[in-house]
């Protein structure tokens, strides 16, 4: 796709003519995106070991898929510049797409205030924001010739903008099959504590509060999705997963460690509830081992040496590679592997429309406490 006529993200024209958007069956978002970027349909027939790449990508509730029925996962490791975000975007397209007999999934992209690689898909995107916050979107030009920073209406950039009240509302009322959702977590943690108190997975000393680091909200999201559904095929794609479940998590006042444990428990249950999680990061070491041990698929992208011995990887009993295949790969290539087999793959470039970053700033509508309200001047 060329973005020639697009000078700023506000110039993007939303794709409102797709079947996914109109509620008809033909010409889905995934097909539209594939056509725009020249991505071919996922072909399970090309793989030597279907349990590896198709096993991770394609799902089914019966045994017709290439892996155990239900949700899957992958832990993707690649250094800066390896094309990690692009790979996640490509993965999103294949997950949204429906290749008979495999279902079309709702893709949830972890939004973060400072990152916006997803804007390649802005004309199809549904951005989900917490209703507890005031939203301010800015375009920040990273071009040296023309640096600027200006406010923009998010509706001018993406196809849909919705506001969720809490994780349960998001899952039940806003996530749709075949759509690309960019979800920004709620710093107010609205509804998270309530979900937790109703959960059979309660642990000592764990509490959700508006003072928690905003990334803890994702644990609340998992609680809502895994325990309350709806159980439509859903995939969560998280870059920099070390931010969410850091190896360094301790039993601090935010119960970070306990939340990692809770995350691990929910991760294990995800498969049964048609929920897949793809975690990416620059260093697999950054993600907590309690969760890493549960990953069944792993990807090593170009520029990082794949392991050759099981002792090099937490939670892996056997590594099928006996030599380093990935260090010298060019950008856009990687290796997906399980304990039994591996397969090398490449992915196409999926360019961003402009050199701009889309920054989304969320400020609580209700001040956390009156003292803060005064100092920040929020009404």
């Amino acid at each position, binding site marked *: 796709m060329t973005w020639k006529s697009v000078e700023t993200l506000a110039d993007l024209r939303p794709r409102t003519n797709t079947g996914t958007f109109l509620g008809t069956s033909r010409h889905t978002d995934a097909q539209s995106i594939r056509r725009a970027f020249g991505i071919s349909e*996922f072909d399970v027939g090309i793989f030597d*070991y279907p349990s590896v790449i198709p096993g991770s990508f394609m799902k089914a509730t019966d045994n017709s898929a290439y892996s155990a029925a239900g949700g899957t996962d992958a832990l993707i490791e690649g250094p800066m510049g390896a094309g990690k975000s692009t790979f996640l975007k490509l993965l999103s397209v*294949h997950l949204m797409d429906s290749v008979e007999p495999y279902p079309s999934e709702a893709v949830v992209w972890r939004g973060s205030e400072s990152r916006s690689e997803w804007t390649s898909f802005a004309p199809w995107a549904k951005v989900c924001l917490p209703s507890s916050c005031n939203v301010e979107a800015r375009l920040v030009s990273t071009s040296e010739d023309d640096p600027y920073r200006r406010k923009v209406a998010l509706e001018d950039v993406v196809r849909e903008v919705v506001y969720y009240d809490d994780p349960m509302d998001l899952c039940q009322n806003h996530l749709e099959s075949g759509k690309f959702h960019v979800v920004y977590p709620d710093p107010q943690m609205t509804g998270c504590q309530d979900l937790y108190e109703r959960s059979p997975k309660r642990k000592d000393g764990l509490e959700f509060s508006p003072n928690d680091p905003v990334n803890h909200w994702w644990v609340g999201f998992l609680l809502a999705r895994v325990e309350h559904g709806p159980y439509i095929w859903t995939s969560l794609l998280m870059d920099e997963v070390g931010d969410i479940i850091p190896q360094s998590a301790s039993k601090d006042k935010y119960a970070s460690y306990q939340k990692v444990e809770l995350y691990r428990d929910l991760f294990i249950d995800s498969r049964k509830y048609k929920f897949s999680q793809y975690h990416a990061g620059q260093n697999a070491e950054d993600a907590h081992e309690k969760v890493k041990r549960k990953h069944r698929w792993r990807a090593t992208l170009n520029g990082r040496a794949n392991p050759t011995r099981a002792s090099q990887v937490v939670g892996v009993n056997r590594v099928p590679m*006996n030599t380093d295949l990935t260090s010298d790969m060019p950008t856009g*290539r990687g290796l997906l592997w399980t304990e039994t087999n591996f*397969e*090398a*793959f490449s*992915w196409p470039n999926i360019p961003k429309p402009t050199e701009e970053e889309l920054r989304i700033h969320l400020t609580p509508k209700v001040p956390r406490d009156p003292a803060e309200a005064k100092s920040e001047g929020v009404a």
Partner: protein
Amino acid sequence: MTNQMASVDEPSTSRSGAGDPLTDLGFGDAEVRDLLDGLPDAPTLRTALQKLTADQLDLLASFIDGFRSRREFLLWCQDAAIHTLGRLSGDWIVERAFSRLDLSVLLVNDRRFDWADSAEDVLPPEKAATARRGVAAVDLLPSFTRSHRGFRWSTVEYGTNDGRDGGDVPDADKQSNPAMRPALAELDQRQGWVLRRVLDGFASEDQLFAWVQQVTEATYAEVDDDLATRLYTESHTREMLLDREGERSKSWFFRESFAAREIVAAFPAAAREVADRSGELAEHENKELDVKSL
């Protein structure tokens, strides 16, 4: 006769091109591939045997296709010595190379007439092709069987942990060494070299001596120890092997005959010795990684 023979002295290794009526009588590659495509997928744990079979199939195919010249036939015999692990005997090679009738059957172009006393003695191409297949059935295939029989238990059996995808079993197609023995590959190269050198002739006696040393190595000393003595003291032989004026055409027939009787005949014994005593090397995964585009 001499003139006719002189015209044959070109190294001829090129295969027949399209439109050659004789091509149709050659080895039926396509049908054989059809048959072998149906082989069971299960990995063969003794890969060296598979490799040996594959190379012997090539040997068989080029024999049935026939040869362009006696020189080409001798080069094939050198190959055959290696890939039958020496089970196709030196005597067999000498008999074929000195039999006018056999050569008129083995050669597939007009040169086959050069080897018969009269044109009536030369079989028509179809009959000659049948005769070559007869020789293959009587001499070649039994030699293949003997080679396997002598070799079978000295091959390495590759184990695999799970047995599902062949695991650590090397792929026969990826092996470059005959019977997976690097020592045989080395022998093959040395033998090919000494054979081509003698067919082309030498510039001086000293070259000849140095070559004899190489022959010794290339035959693992299975060559007669008085080779140098005879070469030097029999002045006729010496002159024929020397190519002083670059007039190779004068003595090509002698050199081929000499090479067949004295040199190529020693190759099988050498191959057999080496095959019996050399180590196996499994070549693994040097292939390009197969990258699937998503």
